[in-house]
């Protein structure tokens, strides 16, 4: 017999009451989003994996204290990720930044076609510019383009109004344009 999936609200209630299986469902629904966010913020898979694990460990430790609101559960996870990434940046300020294409995960130029290599370089140039932005602006860009969220949804996650996100996004575009024109 096939059982119908539980509504998200019910899964969340069960997870809050300490049900590990319910937390496992929430994990499966959110792990890719959180990993992607952290990957774009850190620029390498090793740290993205490490920080993603820490986000879910922290979430599991505190899930019983989670207060349900109208904001999606992922907002809470994004906030944990945002704080952990901020700590990571603070701790690694003196560490030399390794460009994304030099990282072991990427093939050398000879192994990939020219157009793909150019795209990778373009992504890296863009990511260098994005990583120079203040963290809240980076978050807006990642949530808007990678997660395809609306200004309203981004506002829910960041605890800001839709108008504030719109204006933050506009200022972010201007900053990026200045970076590329400089």
């Amino acid at each position, binding site marked *: 017999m096939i059982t119908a999936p539980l509504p998200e609200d019910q899964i969340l209630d069960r997870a809050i009451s300490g049900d590990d299986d319910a937390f496992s469902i929430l994990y499966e629904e959110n792990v*890719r989003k959180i990993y992607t966010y952290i990957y774009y913020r850190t620029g390498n898979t090793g740290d993205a994996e490490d920080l993603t694990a820490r986000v879910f460990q922290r979430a599991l430790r505190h899930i019983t204290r989670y207060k349900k609101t109208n904001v999606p559960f992922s907002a809470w996870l994004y906030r944990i990720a945002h704080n952990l990434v901020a700590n990571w940046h603070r701790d690694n300020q003196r560490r030399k930044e390794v460009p994304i294409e030099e990282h072991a995960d990427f093939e050398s130029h000879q192994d990939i076609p020219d157009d793909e290599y150019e795209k990778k370089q373009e992504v890296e140039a863009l990511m260098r510019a994005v990583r120079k932005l203040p963290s809240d602006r980076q978050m807006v860009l990642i949530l808007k383009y990678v997660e395809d969220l609306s200004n309203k949804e981004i506002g829910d996650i960041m605890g800001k109004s839709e108008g504030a996100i719109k204006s933050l996004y506009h200022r972010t575009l201007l900053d990026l344009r200045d970076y590329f024109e400089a």
Partner: protein
Amino acid sequence: MTDLDSNSQLEQKLDKLLNPVAPNSNYISELQKKLLSRADVSVEYPNYLMIIIILGSGLALGLGLVIILNHLFSRNRGK
């Protein structure tokens, strides 16, 4: 080129370049296993009630003994 054109070009570029990144599937399942196989840690506190009961009854027994002995000695001295 106007500001609007320039912004829309940049938006197109961002849209084309920023895509979701898939983590390694082994990593996802390993992390899930690790999260859910956490050991149940329970902190054991000393049983203060039991300590109070033992000390209290010891003290009461000692005090009772002192009273009885004192009573016996004072009776003997009286004789």
